[in-house]
């Protein structure tokens, strides 16, 4: 790890958290890529590959349910963890801090909608008009 780097380094393929685990922290990628995979019957399917600057692991913090997917480093990745208690305490003083998280979640829901439309064979416009 270089002098000025923040966070923790994960080696290629190293698990950051596993599907089904309790989530107490969310993460912000400082460098590299993180793959989000979900177990479907017996195989793990990649549902997203996230880049530097993106956040992940926020869902379990807000809905208090176990981790919905597994996060692992794709290549070497450096990740900064954000403690749940600290985050919520800061949001309680300044709710606008949640703007960025809401923006990220909205973008992901939009992407999911589009993927759903692709797999159903309809254009997103038709999907919303139906």
């Amino acid at each position, binding site marked *: *790890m*270089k*002098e*000025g*780097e*923040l*966070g*923790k380094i994960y080696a290629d393929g190293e698990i950051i958290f596993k599907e089904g685990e309790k989530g107490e922290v969310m993460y*912000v990628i*400082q460098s590299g890529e993180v793959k989000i995979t979900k177990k479907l019957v017996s195989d793990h399917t990649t549902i997203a590959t996230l880049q*530097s*600057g993106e*956040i992940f692991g926020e869902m379990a913090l807000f809905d208090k349910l176990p981790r919905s997917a597994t996060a692992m480093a794709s290549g070497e990745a450096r990740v*900064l*963890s*954000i*403690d749940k208690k*600290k*985050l919520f305490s*800061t949001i309680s003083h*300044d709710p*606008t*801090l949640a*703007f*960025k*998280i809401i923006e990220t979640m909205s973008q992901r829901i939009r992407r999911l909608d589009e993927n759903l439309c692709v797999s159903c064979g309809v254009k997103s416009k038709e999907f919303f008009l139906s």
Partner: protein
Amino acid sequence: MNEGNSYILEDGANISVIGGGPTGSFFSIFALKMARMMDRELNITIFEPKDFKKDGPGGCNRCGGIISELLVQTLAVEGINFPDSVVRKGIHSYKLHTNHGDVNIATPEFEKTIATIYRGGGPKGMAESGKESFDDFLLNQAIKEGAVHKPARIDGIEFRDSKPVLFSKKNEIMKADLVVGAFGVNSTTQKIFENLGFGYKGPPTITAAIAEIKMDEDIVATHFGNSIHLFLLPDKGIKFAAMVPKGSYVTLCILGKDLKSETVDRFLEKPVVRKVLPGTEQYKIECRCLPKMNIGAPRIPFSDRVVMCGDSGSTRLFKDGLGAAYLMGKAVAKTVVFEGVSRQHFEKAYHPVYKSIITDNYYGRYLYLITDIYRKFGLLTKGMLEVVRNEQERAEDEKILSSILWNMFTGNERYKKILPNALSLKMHLDLWKVFAKILLRMT
């Protein structure tokens, strides 16, 4: 632009920010982001004559240069991540040194969550190091959001038609809908705002002693590692001192009373400090200064179309000035975008944040008073060290004294939130057990 006298900013309103340090940049970044969310357009001009890219005194902003864990994490959530060209060293622990031994307090899994930075280009000769100034990085973030940077010094402000008019070199350069005073306590700009007659008076200050100590990067790595070294010594006049590693330099910051340039030399000669430093032939004091530090807050930090924030307003006592810059810059941005720019608007939306920092500093004063007692009496210092050492074997939520010291000296938590832990019965029982053991050993 606002032609009328409405205190609600309209599309095209002109905001001038005096000072392009962290507070001015944070204000501009968040005001522009929030205005965009509300489909509004603001014109923000940041007046900052200093070139932060410059090394040596020309670009220096005289600061210890630590970004707390809380601020690193909060800014990451905001989408502001520091490139490694800005961070001089990632920090994972604080090493507390006393005349009776030392102890290490680290983050879980030694994750590097604290950043050391140079506000300017660093000591002379560092401009070519490939590293970036923190203030320049933030100023560029503000410019990316749409702010305009003018390298001009504002030397006069007067009100015309109830709006502030700015002058530079005696020439009128802008009629603004709002002026944000975001300059430091070491700036002469303070007088201009004091002369506006709305009751603003610069905050009370103390003098700190800062020195940049040059040594080989390997020596810094071996002797200081990824830790900030904190010294709690029973010396009269020195509240505490910190040595902050930054690549091939270590920044020494001493806080206390009646500090002079020689305080640095006297401090470096202390046996407990000598133990940390390499041999005298392996380091050199590159530069030193005695900057002012804000320790209070002006009673009236705003008026119609004028608001003060950052060091020219209130800041956190002894710690986390950059965290305070973020809080205040953002609080002013929210007020300006969602409320307005009248004295009443600032009173309603900005003053609670401003005041919360002042109130929190009262708790801070009390905590530092207790720390003073612990550092002055050997028995208490030894007891404190032993309890912290014992706590390192325990689970994170059982490290009460360690978390108090961590949160106090890293600036990671509001003082008000630290205080209930300082009253913990369990911690006091641990301390008294240890005091009894030490007394028995002595007899």
